[in-house]
């Protein structure tokens, strides 16, 4: 096995072009588990932790693929509350100190915690190769179970997000608070100025996915200009539509029926919290 240690992004892309079989390693929290258990013996590892371009974010909220969760929580929590909430639920402090959004996207597990947030917040994934770079909307990034839109010679460079335009929520079901892979998860983003909603489910289909019908239903039902307490019937219908967007399976973590039920509950609750935040915000301004 070779251990490749690029010091710049250009060098990393050149190495990846030369050695498309090299497995990128960032925080290593997925890759090292596979190596330790002999589930994978790649011909080469491509260490990305020394590539400075991947370790920083800028004011335009272009977040380097190698920024660990702990820094997203500490440095970006005010502008990206949804992503910070999801990041807080990842693994443990040790895992959050190493694990990255780039790694979450690279692994493309349907259970990855950042995916529903990225979908609900219109994230765009910047990928690059020696041939040039591409901007891939999160909605087009997840192709199947642990499959993403990356070509063999490409690396994930950054995630582009906009500062939260309104309240955001993330919710995840698991057996305890720390160290759980989601049984299922849900993210919602309100865009009051545009009078629309982003909503997405995780760990409840072969890929994380947006709940489009649920989004459209809310956009038509919610009165963003003068937000008032929501009718239970609206919350219930939203929950139903979110649940219907999923196509979960039975597995060791939970049954399909449980996942459908839990998604409806999470959707109702998170909508309630997000909407209340909007009402409270209006009051505070009045």
């Amino acid at each position, binding site marked *: *096995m*070779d*251990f490749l*240690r690029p010091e710049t992004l250009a060098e990393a892309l050149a190495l990846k072009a030369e050695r498309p079989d090299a497995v990128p*390693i960032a*925080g*290593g*929290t997925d*890759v*090292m*588990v596979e*190596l*330790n*258990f002999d589930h994978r*013996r*790649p011909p*080469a*590892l491509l*260490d990305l*932790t020394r590539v400075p371009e991947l370790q920083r974010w800028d004011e335009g909220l272009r977040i380097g693929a190698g920024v660990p969760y*702990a820094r997203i929580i500490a440095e970006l929590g005010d502008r990206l509350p949804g992503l910070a909430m999801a990041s807080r639920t990842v*693994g*443990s*402090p*040790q*895992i959050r*100190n*190493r694990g990255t959004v780039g790694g979450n996207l690279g692994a493309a597990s349907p259970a990855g915690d950042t995916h529903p947030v990225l979908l609900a917040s219109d994230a765009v994934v910047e990928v690059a190769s020696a041939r040039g770079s591409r901007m891939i909307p999160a909605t087009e990034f997840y192709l199947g179970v642990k499959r993403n839109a990356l070509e063999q010679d490409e690396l994930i460079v950054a995630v582009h997000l906009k500062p939260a335009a309104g309240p955001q929520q993330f919710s995840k079901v698991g057996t305890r*608070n*720390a*160290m759980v892979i989601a049984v299922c998860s849900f993210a919602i983003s309100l865009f009051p100025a545009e009078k629309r909603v982003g909503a997405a489910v995780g760990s409840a289909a072969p890929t994380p996915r947006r709940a489009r019908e649920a989004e459209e239903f809310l956009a038509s039902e919610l009165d963003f200009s003068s937000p008032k307490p929501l009718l239970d019937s609206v919350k219930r219908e939203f929950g139903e539509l979110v649940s219907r967007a999923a196509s979960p399976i039975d597995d060791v973590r939970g049954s399909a029926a449980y996942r459908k039920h839990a998604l409806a509950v999470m959707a109702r609750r998170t909508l309630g919290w997000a909407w209340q935040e909007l009402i409270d915000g209006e009051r505070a301004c009045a």
Partner: protein
Amino acid sequence: MRVNLTVNGEQRQADDVWEGESLLYVLRERLGLPGSKNACEQGECGSCTVYLDDVPVCACLVAAGQAQDREVRTVEGLAEGDRLDPVQEAFVEAGAVQCGFCTPGLVVAAHDLLERVPQPSDPEIREALAGNLCRCTGYEKILDAVRLAAARR
């Protein structure tokens, strides 16, 4: 391959390192530092917790080559000569050590917490130690130890 790194303030060199090897293996098997424990090799138990450039991480999930030119501090590096670190002392006094397998990882995690938050609340302690499993103590004595170490600061 060869890996050069600083461990507990000393420049160290490990030879014949397999490229897919973990930092934990290098520390234990190549550098003679068995303090960090190997229990799960999948980031779940925290018994291999070390500082990597001042940030606590699971050494089992760091590729050896990623530690090149970096600074590692293990549980062996906390005591000053024969004088235990106050966190270690508190663990002994509070009865937070039974079989001791989880202790090195917990001590490093608790040490980091108190560096960042000198007077942590109980929820803060629980959150900071959420990545460390103990099969013996039931955690109560471990919480006592962290409270004791905090009170003495």
